[in-house]
């Protein structure tokens, strides 16, 4: 298996490459000369040729359908088709099959305005609506997935100086609030809203994402001034357009969405083309959106959206107007005279496991020592706010809880009320947000229904952190242990709930 000049080891790679058809004619001729003189290498070459022959039979077929994909893409790119209206593009891609994948990453500033939520537990807080719309409008122009002309679709939004539209919030099909949203580029927003059952009206004005906002409740002459902490350092992410750009880029590069055509229908006397988008993202446990637009103008007519954080809730946006005159004074952050000012600070940092444990702990304090039936934030809110905490309910038994209670008693009756407000405004939301934001591969489950706070060796929540081999298991005494396998608890609920909300 040798010749004097070339030990066979030297020929090993050329022979492999020759079998794979990867040598130049001269190189191959040289390799073959050796093969002809060396029986061992000849046998190896024969075996490799068989292997390569079997592999070559598996060459991916390219038929007319595949070639058409490339042709269409090339044509779209070079002819500027991608610069046509979003609706045209959407129609073009509607023929594609939906895919299973993760959704866009939303940079959400969640509503932490506890007083507003306390008064309107069934409402969509304005910031949420505001962000829904950003997501909606962005997706509308973006088309909900990867597109070769993303930059072109961004342009209309970047050029829009103002946007105004109406919105309606529903809970389980019942309208709970309605209002008007106004956006003044680049970052200022105003939401005028009315809670249907109480007819309570309020106005929220935001300066930027992560920036100062005020909520005015005229009936109460109340102004809640929110100065968030731990806002994103990225200045671009703090204004409307920065967030929008970030969202669009995330949607293009980091995630995509499931698309389903909804066909055509008439909305308010206009012919509309619709499709359904759904996905999930790092800050968004999951959402479903229906978009209906005018095929002639490419403008949105109606956008409906739900998210998995609050199943059963839906917001519908309509009557969009772009580039209208909006007075600067509508976006003033000065509190009118005569209003009582309440200052709050919402935490915009990412929640973590400790946030969830704190949520369980505080919920237990408010509920008299039990865990929520489910990690549905909407249901938790209703229980805490509408039904009210059981102030005189089960006395805490643990020493810690006794201490907590003693401290609260010293502060007077307002202590529990304050805790409830903090829970609704921020503590609770952050913990639940952490849980429902976990990706499917975390295999998160909740089993706290009916479990009493402090029960020993009773797992209530578990998940597997990213890249970890072991599960993190939170027990009813709020201790955390690691386990190679998930606890076996009958009727444990998957988190987030697997079923997508329907629109």
């Amino acid at each position: 298996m040798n010749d004097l000049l070339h030990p066979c080891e030297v020929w090993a790679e050329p022979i492999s490459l020759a079998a794979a058809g990867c040598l130049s004619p001269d190189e191959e001729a040289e390799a073959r000369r050796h093969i002809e003189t060396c029986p061992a290498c000849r046998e190896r070459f024969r075996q490799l040729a068989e292997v390569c022959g079997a592999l070559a039979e598996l060459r991916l077929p390219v038929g007319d359908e595949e070639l058409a994909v490339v042709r269409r893409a090339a044509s779209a790119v070079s002819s500027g088709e991608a610069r046509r209206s979003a609706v045209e593009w959407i129609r073009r891609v509607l023929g594609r099959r939906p895919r299973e994948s993760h959704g866009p990453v939303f940079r959400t500033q969640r509503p932490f305005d506890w007083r507003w939520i306390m008064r309107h537990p069934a409402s969509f807080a304005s910031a949420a609506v505001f962000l829904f719309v950003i997501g909606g409008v962005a997706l509308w122009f973006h088309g909900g997935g990867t597109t070769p002309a993303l930059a072109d679709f961004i342009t209309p939004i970047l050029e829009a100086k103002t946007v105004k539209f109406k919105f309606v919030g529903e809970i389980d099909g019942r309208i709970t609030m309605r209002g008007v949203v106004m956006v003044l580029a680049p970052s200022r927003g105003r939401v005028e809203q009315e809670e249907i059952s109480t007819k309570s009206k309020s106005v929220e004005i935001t300066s930027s994402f992560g920036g100062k906002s005020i909520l005015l409740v005229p009936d109460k002459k109340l102004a809640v001034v929110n100065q968030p902490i731990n806002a994103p350092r990225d200045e671009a992410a703090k204004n409307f357009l920065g967030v929008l750009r970030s969202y669009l880029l995330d949607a293009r590069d980091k995630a995509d969405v499931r698309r389903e055509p909804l066909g055509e229908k008439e909305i308010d006397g206009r012919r509309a083309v619709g499709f359904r988008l759904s996905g999930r993202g790092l800050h968004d446990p999951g959402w479903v959106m229906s978009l209906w637009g005018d095929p002639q103008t490419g403008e949105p007519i109606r956008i409906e959206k739900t998210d998995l954080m609050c199943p059963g809730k839906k917001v519908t946006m309509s009557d969009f107007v772009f580039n209208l005159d909006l007075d600067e004074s509508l976006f003033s952050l000065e509190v009118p005279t005569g209003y009582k000012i309440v200052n709050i600070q919402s935490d915009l940092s990412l929640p973590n496991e400790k946030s969830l444990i704190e949520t369980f702990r505080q919920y237990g304090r408010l509920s008299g020592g039990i865990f929520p039936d489910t990690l549905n934030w909407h249901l938790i809110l209703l229980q805490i706010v509408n039904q009210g905490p059981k102030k005189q309910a089960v006395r805490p038994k643990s020493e810690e809880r006794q201490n907590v209670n003693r401290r609260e008693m010293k502060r007077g009756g307002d202590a529990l009320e304050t805790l409830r407000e903090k829970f609704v405004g921020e503590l609770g939301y952050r913990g639940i947000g952490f849980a429902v934001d976990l990706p499917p591969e975390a295999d998160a489950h909740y089993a706290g229904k009916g479990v009493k706070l402090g029960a020993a060796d009773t797992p209530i929540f578990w998940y597997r952190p990213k890249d970890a081999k072991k599960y993190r298991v939170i027990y009813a005494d709020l201790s955390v242990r690691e386990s190679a396998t998930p606890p076996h608890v009958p009727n444990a609920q998957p988190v987030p709930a697997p079923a997508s909300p329907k629109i």
Partner: protein
Amino acid sequence: VDVHQDDQCELIGRAQAGEAAAFERLAEQHAARLWRGALALGRDRHWAEDLVQETLLEAWRSLPRFDGRCRFSTWLYGILRHRFLKGRRRHDAARPSAAAALEEDHLAAWLPDRCAEASEDARRVRQAVASLPEEHRLVVELRFFAGATLEEIAAALDCPLGTVKSRLHHALEKLRQMKLAVNLFAPSRETRESKP
């Protein structure tokens, strides 16, 4: 340099000058290769479509910077790699792992439907490829499934040409050893029994 090469140089020049038809012609010439590369890397038909679109868009925008120091197809594969890496983290969770492919033959799932009826022999070969370490598997898939040249593979994987040669050699050697040791490439029992 053949006529095709001259034709391609002319097309590139016209496309660089902004002629859409020339760019479309170029894309047409490389359509099969681009599609196969996208599918081999993405292992998902929908993602492959996106990769093709994104690659062509980036190619169109970057075309003025193409200096001809490598083949146009190699340059395209470099862009394809860039787009693949950009979207990889997002798609990885949904993509079948090589291990899963080995166990359940998921590789068949990313082939077009008409390949789903591939023979038992083909399944064995795909399983053997799926069992290779990723750096070896990718080279084999790009070379044989996508039909890429070594230069294109180097561009797609962003590694030196010598590394590609070495990986391909070692990958083929492993497959040859499999063929000898566990007879993975042997005809299936059904095939053997069906023969007279």
